[in-house]
């Protein structure tokens, strides 16, 4: 009997702390939104962050996209060949890249690069009292540190997802041409027929949401870091893990609305 009570207490504590954490995160989101729409608007800082997010991830995105597209082409080609429909492989690859793989893979890569760096940088500023110093000088740290990063991520993610889609299709095209001997005309005709512009837009909208999700989570985790260098490491790990899971859950929810 006593054990059951202990178990209930244990579970209750987990539920309470999860709800409490969620509540604090929502308050943080409200603060971020409030400072997004109220001055000062820090254009210079936004550009700095755009460059940071873009630069950090673009090379990896090129390489990853090329090989993801090529591998998809290889795998799908095996199946399509059974029906002598190799021409469709570009279309199938393009569709999955546009709707799912582009935004999600991009999200994963950008979290690993830019998201982790954001969490670590802000966490370091927190444990070294730099955020206190910002506040002490009458500057709101959310407005100065978080808002430019969130805006930059929201702008940059769809751009990166677009690049991912394009490079991925190129990767698939090369496999199609050289490995499966598909005709270029056929490849692109099928691609246009199957992949609609609305698919591309849906994917980019997803990427935009993912940008918002990972940047707010990374900044939140950094912002609430405590306890020296160890705290910085913990905040960074948590930001990456929670960011990845949130993108997957978010993907499911957004897809529900899109289909």
């Amino acid at each position: 009997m006593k054990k059951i009570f202990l178990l209930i207490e244990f579970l209750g504590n987990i539920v309470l702390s999860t709800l409490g954490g969620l509540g604090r995160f929502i308050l943080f989101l409200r603060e971020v939104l409030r400072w997004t729409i109220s001055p000062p608007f820090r254009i210079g800082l936004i550009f700095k962050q755009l460059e940071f997010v873009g630069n950090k991830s673009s090379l990896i995105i090129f390489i990853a996209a090329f090989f993801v597209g090529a591998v998809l082409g290889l795998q799908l080609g095996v199946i399509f060949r059974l029906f002598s429909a190799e021409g469709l492989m570009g279309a199938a690859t393009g569709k999955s890249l546009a709707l799912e793989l582009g935004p999600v893979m991009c999200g994963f890569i950008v979290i690993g690069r830019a998201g982790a760096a954001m969490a670590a940088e802000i966490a370091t500023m927190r444990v070294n009292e730099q955020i206190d110093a910002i506040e002490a000088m009458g500057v709101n740290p959310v407005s100065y540190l978080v808002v430019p990063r969130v805006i930059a991520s929201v702008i940059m993610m769809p751009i990166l997802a677009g690049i991912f889609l394009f490079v991925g299709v190129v990767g698939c095209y090369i496999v199609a041409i050289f490995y499966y001997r598909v005709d270029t005309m056929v490849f692109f005709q099928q691609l246009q027929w199957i992949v609609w512009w609305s698919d591309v837009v849906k994917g980019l909208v997803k990427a935009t949401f993912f940008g918002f999700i990972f940047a707010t989570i990374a900044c939140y985790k950094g912002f609430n870091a405590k306890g020296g260098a160890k705290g910085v490491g913990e905040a960074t790990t948590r930001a990456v893990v929670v960011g990845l899971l949130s993108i997957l859950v978010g993907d499911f929810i957004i897809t529900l609305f899109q289909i």
Partner: protein
Amino acid sequence: MSEKGLVSLINLRKTFGKNKVLRGLDLNVPNKKLSFIIGRSGEGKSVTLKHIIGILKPDEGEVWINGVPMHNADERAWEKIRQQIGTLFQDGALFDSLNVFDNISFPIQNHTKMSLSKMKEEVKNLLSIVGLPSIEEKFPPELSIGERKRVGLARALALKPKLLLYDEPTTSMDPLVADLIDNLILNTQQKLEGMTSVVISHDITSVMNIAEYIFFLHEGKVYFEGTPEAFCSSKDELVKQFLTGGRNGPLAVPIV
């Protein structure tokens, strides 16, 4: 209102988890004077200072700044107040990603519309005030801890505040530089009309050299307050032990 100075903390209580740091602290900073807050490491000196600038909010008690109650004030009100307060943090708290110029001009850039050329002049001037050469292009990780603190001090002075808060300005500096900083604090205090300064310090020599008023924090309260003379002539065992930094006395662990 007359009994309330520039800063009044009334019956302040602050607990972190199970750690009761402030336990009913009353502290009235004398206007236009150079006051010191002293006490053992971990007694809550930095926590007290953070209540004065509203970075920490009390669990209980009141914070009055310039005759205005701030304990229930919103962030906007605090941001206004903070622009008139210069704070030097314990480790300088410089921004690692900005060079010395951007660090010192951070408050100027955020709160005034000063031109770049004027700002450059101003930063040069601030650097020379704290006894540093032209190191505008350097980044904080390239500086020694003493240099970082002086840059932090220059930044605290940038907006010409009416109230200056120093958290251990001379800790981890060689005696010559510590002396320079002491003189700097004293000069700033005397040169600028109507300036009020609060210094947190472990350095009993600088306390005795330049303090006009002393608060001694112990167990989350002001245990003793008064002029340095009163402090010196006190018969209290605890105060005497703190003065001599000795092992013998009511405090189990030696201070400093």
